Every structure is written in structure tokens, then in C-alpha cells.
């Protein structure tokens, strides 16, 4: 590594990953199931991977192309958020309306966090947090994978052994980033799956947008056409990363279960598909909240930004549709490599195989995905509800804000663990003292 590479790496990590980035091996321990995924990805990449963990940085994984090696950074906080979100799947949230209420609360809380940590907005952060407490009725979602001292929980293999859900929860986001890196090895001229020409992507997009009916997203698409978030190039790039990431997961899960699954010899395909679907929905949920916060952080609230925000759910649903269509062949290739599956997933021939070769597996994929989607639809839908609520708060309606603050003062438990936890989190994640103290004054 020459001195300029070292300088670029140091600057890239500190700006995008925060001040505490450590080697994955030091963070996760050695050996760890994540090693198998990394080793598998390394085989498809020409440059050495350098995987690190951002302990206290922004809550997003990322990679940094442009150096002779490839830094890929896992955000510990992102893992914490995913853990918290997916905890809503538990039986205890099966009470009427409770899961939706918790999801809306969490969406608002995440928007508050992103406003504060990823941006510069203290006051909206305080407002969204107050609103989340009001919406949630002071509900406290267990946060077993929070940052504060519970690091081991993020990493711990369940007592029953690693399973498909453990693998996906821990590695889905990382696999997506590695999927980008693998996709980029195809070079600019050939980047992305050839089966997804512009025309095919637009056909996917139109089909998906049609399913949004008269919702804000559907109306926006019909009235204004596709915004930047729905451009074919962007959809192609992200869909390719989704697919390559899932392929990595599908290939890695067998060896991981064999080593860490308490004697598990085979992968449960339905469980794997359920876990992939679940984690894809979690990613979409979190990123919809992040986009809201980013939009609010913009200096100007333009029609273009509002359109992009409205149409973001269509972008995720389009990617989901593409991924779902290609999962059968990914799974078939990964779990049954001896079968007659074309090596090039993205070839036109591969596309025909997807539709023809194994209708049974295809049917199973669709069923598992739809079941998982149904199971999560309650809280996924609340992303949009949370975002709409957030936009209303952001409209600078003084009367509404005053009412919100007044309601919060009367109803919310200001000394609750959730409030203290949020303020501590702000401090832990590197928000300057003056800002998180101002936040504390507002909400405590």
C-alpha cells in the first residue's frame, strides 16, 4: 500500500465510516461465520478485500472502489437497526394493531436518528422522536442489538446454532455491497445483467408502478413519470447487486450451517427464501426512512425531491420483483450445482431456464416470498405511513409543531429508557456534544 493509498483509505474511512473502524477479524472474532461469505466473495474479485467494521459511524454499510484493494465496511449500527426491526416479527407483536403501531413508531424514530446522525437537523430530529413516542404510546421495542455495550449480541450465534435467518440478518447488507463490487468487475461496457435491458427494466417498472394504484407513489408515477430513483441505470445497478448478493448468501449458507449450525447438513430452502425476503424488506424499510431524512436535510424542499421520495417505494418494489424472478435459479445453482444450470446467470439462456427448468422450485420461491411479504406487510406499509407523518411535521406548520410538543409534554414519559437511549445513541454515534445536549433539552 503506497502512502497515497494509505492517505485515501484513512480519509475515506474517517469520513464515511466514522472515527472507529476496526478490522472485521478483530471485531467479529476469528473464526466467524462471516469469514465464509468474505472468502467466497474474494474468489470473484481481482483485488484483495479489506473488510472492516464501523463501530460508531453512520448506519450504512459501504465499499470504496478506487484503490488497489477493496475496503468494504460493515456498520454495526445498521446491524443493530435490522435486529430491532426484525424483532417485530416475534409472536408477542401479534396483538391486533400492535405490530403496525410499533413499526410506525420505529419508522419515525429512525427518521429522527438519520436527521441527527447523518445530517445536521437537530430540531426535526427532536420532533420526529417526540412523534414516535406519541405514536408508539411509550411502547419500548426491545433492542437486543443496540450499540451500547451489547456488541456480543450482534455477533452471537444462537444457542440452537446458526440458521438461515441468522446468516441473512447478519450478512444480507454486506452481501449486497459485495454484490456491487462483483458486478463492477464486469467493466463499464458490460456492467449489469444483459437480461435487464432498458426496455425490460421499464417493463418491470411499469408493471410494479401499476400495482401502487392511487397511492401517492402510484399517482406520482402516473402524473409526472419516472423520477431519477426509477432510472433504468440505477435500477439495473442495484438489482444486479441484489442478485449477486443473494447468490453469495445462497452459496455461503450451506458451508456456514455445516460449520456453525449444530450439525445441520442441509439448507432449508423455504427458510432461506423467507430470510432473504425478510431482510430485503428490512433494507427497503430502513432506506425509505433514510431518504426521508436526507430529503429533509436538503437545503431546499423541491418538487423533484418530493417526487423522488414518493416514488422510492416503487424502486424497491421493482428491485424486489426482479430479485424474486431470479431467485429460483440462484438457489438452484447454489444448492444443486450438479444440475444443468447455466453458469452465467445473466445470460438470455439463463433467463429462459429460470422460467422453464424447475417450475416446482419457482413455485416454492414465489410462495415463500409471498408468505414472508404478507407477514411483514403490516410493518412495511407503516414505512409509508411514517414517512407521510414525517413530511407533515416538516411542513413548518408552527401550530402543528406546538401541538406536538404540547402533547408530548403531557403524554410521553420523558424519563423513559427509550428517551435516554436515544440521547445516548446520538452521543455514541458521534453527534457533537452541543447538538445532542440540545436534543436532550428538547426531549427529556
Amino acid at each position, binding site marked *: 500500500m503506497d502512502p497515497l493509498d494509505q492517505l485515501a483509505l484513512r480519509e*475515506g474511512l474517517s469520513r464515511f465510516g466514522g472515527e472507529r473502524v476496526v478490522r472485521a477479524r478483530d471485531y467479529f472474532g476469528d473464526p466467524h461465520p462471516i469469514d465464509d461469505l468474505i472468502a467466497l466473495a474474494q474468489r470473484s474479485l481481482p483485488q484483495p478485500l479489506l473488510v472492516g467494521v464501523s463501530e460508531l459511524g453512520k448506519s450504512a454499510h459501504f465499499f470504496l472502489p478506487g484503490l488497489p484493494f477493496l475496503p468494504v465496511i460493515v456498520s454495526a449500527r445498521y446491524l443493530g437497526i435490522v435486529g430491532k426491526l426484525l424483532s417485530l416479527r416475534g409472536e408477542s407483536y401479534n396483538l391486533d394493531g400492535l405490530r403496525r403501531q410499533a413499526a410506525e413508531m420505529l419508522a419515525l424514530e429512525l427518521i429522527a436518528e438519520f436527521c441527527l446522525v447523518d445530517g445536521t437537523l437537530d430540531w426535526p430530529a427532536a420532533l420526529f422522536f417526540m412523534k414516535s413516542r406519541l405514536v408508539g404510546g411509550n411502547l419500548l421495542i426491545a433492542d437486543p442489538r443496540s450499540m451500547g455495550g451489547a456488541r456480543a449480541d450482534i455477533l452471537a450465534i444462537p444457542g440452537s446454532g446458526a440458521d438461515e435467518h441468522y446468516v441473512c440478518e447478519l450478512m444480507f447488507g454486506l452481501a449486497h455491497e459485495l454484490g456491487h463490487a462483483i458486478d463492477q468487475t464486469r467493466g463499464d461496457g458490460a456492467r449489469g445483467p444483459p437480461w435487464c435491458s432498458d426496455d425490460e427494466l421499464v417493463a418491470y417498472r411499469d408493471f410494479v408502478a401499476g400495482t401502487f394504484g392511487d397511492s401517492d407513489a402510484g399517482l406520482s408515477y402516473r402524473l409526472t413519470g419516472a423520477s431519477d430513483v426509477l432510472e433504468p441505470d440505477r435500477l439495473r445497478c442495484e438489482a444486479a447487486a441484489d442478485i449477486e448478493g443473494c447468490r453469495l448468501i445462497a452459496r455461503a449458507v450451506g458451508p456456514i450451517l455445516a460449520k456453525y449450525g449444530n450439525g445441520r447438513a442441509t439448507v432449508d430452502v423455504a427458510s432461506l427464501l423467507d430470510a432473504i425476503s425478510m431482510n430485503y424488506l428490512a433494507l427497503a424499510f430502513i432506506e425509505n426512512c433514510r431518504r426521508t431524512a436526507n430529503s429533509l436535510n436538503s437545503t431546499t424542499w423541491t418538487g423533484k425531491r418530493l417526487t423522488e421520495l414518493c416514488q422510492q417505494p416503487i424502486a424497491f418494489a421493482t428491485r424486489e420483483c426482479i430479485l424474486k424472478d431470479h431467485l429460483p435459479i440462484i438457489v438452484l445453482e447454489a444448492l444443486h450445482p450438479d444440475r444443468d444450470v447455466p453458469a452465467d446467470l445473466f445470460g438470455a439462456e439463463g433467463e429462459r431456464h429460470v422460467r422453464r427448468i424447475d417450475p416446482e422450485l419457482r413455485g416454492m420461491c414465489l410462495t415463500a416470498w409471498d408468505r414472508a411479504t404478507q407477514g411483514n406487510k403490516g410493518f412495511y406499509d407503516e414505512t409509508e405511513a411514517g414517512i407521510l407523518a414525517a413530511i407533515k411535521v416538516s411542513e413548518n406548520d408552527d401550530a402543528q409543531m406546538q401541538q406536538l410538543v404540547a402533547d408530548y409534554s403531557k403524554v410521553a414519559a420523558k424519563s423513559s429508557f427509550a428517551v435516554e437511549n436515544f440521547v445516548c445513541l446520538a452521543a455514541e454515534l458521534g453527534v457533537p456534544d452541543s447538538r445532542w445536549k440540545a436534543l436532550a433539552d428538547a426531549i427529556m
Partner: protein
Amino acid sequence: MSDETVAVVLEINGEADAGLGEEITRNVGAQTRTLTKHGFDGDLASWLLVGNFVVSSFATLGPVLMKYLGDRRVKSIKVGDVTIENPRQEDLARILSELGSRGNGST
């Protein structure tokens, strides 16, 4: 002329463009590295241009940066230990000019 080197880091919003690095190499004779970062939703967060420059080259570097940056939004510039967030063009010109004149023996 001083041969002291100073690290310069620009963080810029928008699509990464190798053109700036190439122009710097051509005109200033220094190597740079360009690092990009994307979000999970494909949104481009920002990109970094990182280089180590001989202070005496700042007189040449300044106009290249100014011409290139134009109306692009620079989130921050770091020159040595000094970081300016949302710099105006005159901020960038001033800091490069002051450091450049130091490299040329002025104070």
C-alpha cells in the same frame, strides 16, 4: 522552493468524475485517488478526491480546482489540518494562495 507536501481532500456531491484527477496529473504532475460511496438505494452520497501536493504546486493547483469545480457542490475541503465545510470559491482560493505563497518563500 519548499518541497513540503500537504494532503488535500475534497468531498464533493454528485457523480464521481475521473476527469479532475486526470487534469491534476496533467497540469500539476501529482497523483490523486478518487473514492466514491453509494447508498443502499443507489443514491450517490458523495465522492472524495485525495492527493498529496508539494506546497509550491498550489499556484497551479488552485486554478485547476477552480475551473473544474465551477458550480459543483463541494461539501468540504481539507488542506493539511484545516477543514472548511461548504467552502465558497474564495475560501478555497485564499487557503491555497496562502499556503502556496508559503511554499514560494513568502510568509
